[in-house]
C-alpha cells in the first residue's frame, strides 16, 4: 500500500509542476561539476565539514590518517595501516556511512568500511556530514557520513601532479594524476602505489611490529562530456587492491595476511530542461576479501559481493524558492563466500526531498524515504532540517531524522548462526547547531542526541552457537566545538582549525559507556605560510576509553611538518615537505595491545606541471 502511495505522489508532483522557475547557472554548474549536488543543496540544517585537496595532500595517504586530525571521529585501528573502523558520535563501526560520489559503499558483508582501504589522494575533497543521513544515503548513516568526492572541471586545462614520498619503516608512495579538459569535456586519471614495511618499534618493549607490512594500488578515472546544453554524460571509476599482513599484538604474534579488492564504477546521464534536472545512474560495486590465517600457506577464506544499482533522480525547481527531488533506486546484491554460500538480496527505495528557501534568512527541508527489501522490512525514514540566519554573524541549524542500518550478509546468512529473522537497526536523532562567523573566524557548536534500538549483537544461543539478534539499545549524546580561523598579515598567513567533542554513548540496559568511545577527544591543526615557506603542526588528544575487561589510557599525538615551494621552471612547480609524525615519541594505542608507531619521518616531493 505504502509503496503505491509514494510512487503516485512522485508522479503527481512530476505532472503538475509549476513552470516559470528556471535553473540558475550556479545550480546547473553544481549539478554538472559535483558528483553529489544534494550534499550541498539538501542539507542546510546539517553540519558539513569539508576537507579540501590541499589539506588532503599534506596528510599521509590513508583516510584514517586524514580524519584522525581533521574530524571528531574516533578510529579503532588494529595497528597502523591495519583494519580501521570509525566511531562517529559514539556510534559503532557500521553506523557511519561512507559515500563515494553519492553512493553508499559500506561493505555488504559486515556493514563497515575499513578506512585504511581508502587512499584519500584519489579524491578532490572529503566531506564529513554530521548527523543521521539514512534518507539520502541509506543504511548505516546513523552517526553521520563521510563523503569522498571527485569534481569535474569544465575549462581548458591540462594539469599533472606527481607525488613521491619516502619515509621511516621503508614507506614509499608514488602518486600520479592528470586532469585535463575544456568547456565540453573533462577527464581525471590517477593512480597511487603505497608500500611500507611498517616495522615500527613497540615503544617500551623490545618488540617491533613484525607482521605489519602492507602495500596497495589504487586507480581512478573520472570524466564528463557535455553533449549539448541539455545533456551531460559522466563516468566515475575507482579501483583498490590491497595486500596486508595483520599485525600481532603485545600479547600474541600473528602470521596472518589479508587481501582486499574493490571496484566501483558509475555511469551517469544528466538531462536539463527548464526547471528540471534529471539524472540516471548505473552503478556497479565489487568488493572481495581473502583472509589467510597463515600467510605462508595457500589456504584462505573469502567473501565477495557484486552490487548492481540503478538510480533515477528527478529534480524540479517549482518556484525560485522551492525545489523538489524524487529518487528511485533499485539494487541487487549478489554475495559469494566460504561462510554463507551464494545469497542475493534485492532492494528498492523511493525518496522525496523538499527544500524551501522561505526568506533570505530562513531555509528548511523535509525528506522522506521508504525501502523494500527482499529479506526484511525496512522502516520508513524521514529527516527535517532548517537553518535560520539570525544576524550576519550568527545562525542556528536544527535537524531531526529517523535512520536505519540493515542486517549484513554476515548477519543474515553466516553459517552457522546467520539469522533471517533480523530486522534493521532503528535510530532517532536530533541535532542543534549554532554558528558564529566573524571576520577571520568561524565557530560551530553542536549538540545531538541519538537513540538507537534493535541493534544487532552476536550472542550465543541455547546450543552455544553464536547468532545475531536485535537486542541492544544505545543512547548517545554529546557536544562538539569546531573552530576555523584564518588571518593574513601582509605576506604571513595563519590558519587554525580546532575541534573538541564530548561524547556519552551508553548501553541502555547497563547504563555504561560503550567500549572504544572516549568521553573527550580534541584536535587542532595550525599552519603558517610565508612566501615559499609553509609549516604546520597537528595535535590530537584522546581521553581514556573502556575496553572489554578494563580500560585503555588516553594519549596525545603531535605531528610537525615544514614545506618549501619552488618554481623549477615556468611550467614546473615543486613542493618539498618534511613531516615528523608522533614528534613526542609517545607510546599509544587506540585499540588495546596494538601499539601505534614511534616517532617517524616522511619526506614528500610534489611536482605540478
Amino acid at each position, binding site marked *: 500500500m505504502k509503496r503505491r502511495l509514494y510512487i503516485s505522489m512522485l508522479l503527481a508532483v512530476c505532472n503538475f509542476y509549476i513552470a516559470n522557475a528556471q535553473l540558475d547557472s550556479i545550480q546547473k554548474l553544481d549539478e554538472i561539476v559535483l558528483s553529489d549536488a544534494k550534499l550541498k543543496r539538501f542539507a542546510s540544517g546539517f553540519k558539513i565539514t569539508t576537507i579540501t585537496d590541499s589539506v588532503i595532500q599534506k596528510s599521509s595517504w590513508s583516510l584514517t590518517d586524514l580524519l584522525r586530525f581533521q574530524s571528531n571521529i574516533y578510529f579503532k585501528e588494529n595497528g597502523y595501516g591495519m583494519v580501521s573502523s570509525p566511531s562517529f558520535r559514539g556510534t559503532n563501526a557500521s553506523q557511519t556511512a561512507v559515500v563515494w560520489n553519492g553512493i553508499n559503499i559500506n561493505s555488504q558483508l559486515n556493514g563497515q568500511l575499513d578506512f585504511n582501504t581508502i587512499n584519500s589522494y584519489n579524491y578532490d575533497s572529503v566531506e564529513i556530514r554530521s548527523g543521521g543521513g539514512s534518507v539520502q544515503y541509506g543504511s548505516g548513516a546513523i552517526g553521520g557520513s563521510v563523503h569522498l568526492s571527485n569534481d569535474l572541471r569544465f575549462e581548458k586545462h591540462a594539469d599533472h601532479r606527481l607525488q613521491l614520498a619516502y619515509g621511516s619503516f621503508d614507506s614509499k608512495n608514488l602518486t600520479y594524476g592528470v586532469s585535463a579538459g575544456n568547456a565540453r569535456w573533462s577527464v581525471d586519471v590517477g593512480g597511487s602505489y603505497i608500500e611500507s614495511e611498517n616495522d615500527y618499534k613497540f615503544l617500551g618493549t623490545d618488540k617491533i611490529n613484525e607482521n605489519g607490512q602492507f602495500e596497495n594500488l589504487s586507480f581512478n578515472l573520472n570524466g564528463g562530456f557535455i553533449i549539448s546544453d541539455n545533456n551531460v554524460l559522466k563516468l566515475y571509476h575507482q579501483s583498490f587492491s590491497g595486500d596486508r599482513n595483520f599485525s600481532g599484538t603485545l600479547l*600474541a604474534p600473528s602470521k596472518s595476511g589479508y587481501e582486499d579488492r574493490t571496484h566501483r564504477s558509475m555511469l551517469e546521464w544528466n538531462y536539463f530542461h527548464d526547471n528540471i534536472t534529471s539524472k540516471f545512474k548505473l552503478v556497479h560495486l565489487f568488493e572481495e576479501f581473502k583472509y589467510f590465517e597463515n600467510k605462508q600457506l595457500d589456504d584462505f577464506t573469502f567473501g565477495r559481493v557484486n552490487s548492481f544499482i540503478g538510480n533515477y533522480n528527478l529534480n524540479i525547481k517549482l518556484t525560485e524558492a522551492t525545489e523538489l527531488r524524487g529518487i528511485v533506486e533499485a539494487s541487487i546484491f549478489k554475495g559469494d563466500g566460504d561462510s554463507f554460500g551464494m545469497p542475493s538480496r534485492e532492494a528498492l527505495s523511493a525518496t522525496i526531498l523538499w527544500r524551501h528557501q522561505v526568506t533570505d534568512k530562513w531555509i528548511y527541508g523535509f525528506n522522506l524515504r521508504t525501502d523494500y527489501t527482499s529479506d526484511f522490512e525496512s522502516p520508513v525514514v524521514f529527516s527535517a532540517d532548517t537553518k535560520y540566519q539570525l544576524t550576519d554573524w550568527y545562525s542556528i541549524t536544527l535537524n531531526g531524522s529517523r535512520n536505519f542500518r540493515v542486517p549484513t550478509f554476515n548477519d543474515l546468512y553466516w553459517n552457522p548462526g546467520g539469522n533471517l529473522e533480523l530486522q534493521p537497526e532503528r535510530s532517532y536523532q536530533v541535532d542543534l547547531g549554532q554558528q558564529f562567523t566573524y571576520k577571520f573566524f568561524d565557530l560551530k557548536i553542536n549538540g545531538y542526541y541519538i537513540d538507537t534500538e534493535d541493534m544487532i549483537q552476536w550472542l*550465543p544461543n541455547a546450543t552455544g552457537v553464536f547468532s545475531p539478534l536485535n537486542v541492544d539499545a544505545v543512547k548517545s549524546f554529546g557536544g562538539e566545538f569546531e573552530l576555523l580561523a584564518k588571518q593574513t598579515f601582509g605576506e604571513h598567513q595563519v590558519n587554525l582549525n580546532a575541534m573538541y567533542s564530548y561524547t556519552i554513548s551508553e548501553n541502555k540496559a547497563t547504563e555504561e559507556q560503550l*567500549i572504544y568511545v572516549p568521553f573527550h577527544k580534541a584536535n587542532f591543526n595550525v599552519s603558517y605560510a610565508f612566501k615559499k615557506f609553509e609549516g604546520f603542526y597537528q595535535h590530537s588528544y584522546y581521553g581514556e576509553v573502556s575496553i*572489554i*575487561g578494563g580500560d585503555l589510557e588516553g594519549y596525545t599525538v603531535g605531528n610537525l611538518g615544514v614545506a618549501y615551494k619552488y618554481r623549477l621552471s615556468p611550467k614546473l612547480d615543486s613542493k618539498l615537505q618534511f613531516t615528523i609524525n608522533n614528534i613526542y615519541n609517545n607510546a599509544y594505542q587506540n585499540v588495546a595491545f596494538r601499539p601505534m608507531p614511534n616517532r617517524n619521518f616522511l619526506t614528500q616531493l610534489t611536482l605540478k606541471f
Partner: protein
Amino acid sequence: MNIKNVFVSLSIVGLIFSCSDDDAPTAIVPSTSYEDGILITHEGQFSGGFGTVSYVSNDFTTVENNIFSNVNNRTLGTVAQSMAINGDLAYIVINVSNQIEVVNKNTFESVATINTGLSNPRFMTISNGKGYVTNWGDFTPADDDYVAVIDLATNAVVSTISCSYLPEELIEINNKVYVATGVFDSGNKVDVINTTTDTLEQTITVGNSPNSLQLDSDGDLWVLSSENLVEIDTTTDLILQTIDFGGAFAFPSDLNFDNGSFYIYDSGSVFKMDEASNIIPTTPEFTNVNFYDMRVRNGLLYGLDARDFASNGTLQVYDLTSNTEIQTFTLGVIPGGVYFND
C-alpha cells in the same frame, strides 16, 4: 568445548568491534595464598584481548579476580584456554599467544614462560613426569596437528608427536595419554600416546567431535561425543560399549564423573547417569542454566556462565543433593575452566 567462540572470532574478521560494554575491574591487593580453593581460567576476548585467572576459596568467603596480573604486574596473554596442575606448579595454556605460563599454584608468582614449540596450544596434562600439550597448528591444514612433549625440569618442548586433526582435551592413565581429536564435525578419533616411548600407539574411532574424557572407578575411559558415549578399556584400548544418544541430546558436552555418576551438560540442562547404567538420562537434574563449562566434585557442581562473551561472566555453584544453587560469583570475561587447588 571453548571453541565455538574461537571459531566465530576466527571467521568474522569484521565483527571485531561489535558493540558491547563492560565493568572495569577494581584494584585489589593480591592475597598471599591461593590454596584451598578453585582457580578459574578466563579466555578473554579472542581478538586482542587478554586472559585472566580468578580464585574462589573452598569456603566461598574469598574471591579474587585477575590474580595473575595482581601478583605479577603484567597481563596474561590472549585466550587463557586451560590449565594443568602438577605438584606446586600450575601451567596456564595461552592459545593465541602460543605460550604456557608456568606459575606457583599457591602464590601465582610466575616461574617460567614457555614460548617456543607451541602452535595454537589447547590443553595440557602430565604423564610420566612430562607435560603433554595438544596443538592445532594452523586451523585448516590437517597434517600439522601435534602433541608437544614438555620437559618439566627445563620447561622446554623436547619433542612433538603428530596426531589426528584438531586435538583437544587429553587425559592420562597408566603411562598413556588419550587425546580427543576433532571439532565442528571434522573428526571422531581418540589418539593413544605411549608416554614411555612418546609415540602414537593407536587411534580409536569414537563418535563425532569427541569433546570430553573421564575415567570411571574401574579406570575405564569414557568419551563423550556429539552422538554417543563410548567406554574404552584402558588396558586393551578396546571399546567396551557405545551408548548412542539417538538424537536425545543436541550439543552434549562437559562429561564429569563424581561418586559413581556421570554428569552431562546439554543445551541449558544438566543430566546425570549412573556409571553402571547404559541408558541415556532423559530427565535433567536441573535446567535453565547457561554453562560454557562445568566441573563436578564431591557433590558440588561448578558452572561457568560466559553470558554475552563480552561482559563479566559468573560462577554458579550447585549442591547436587538438592540440585539447588548455593553460591554465585561474578568473575572475568569468558570464564572457561575450573581447576581445584587443594
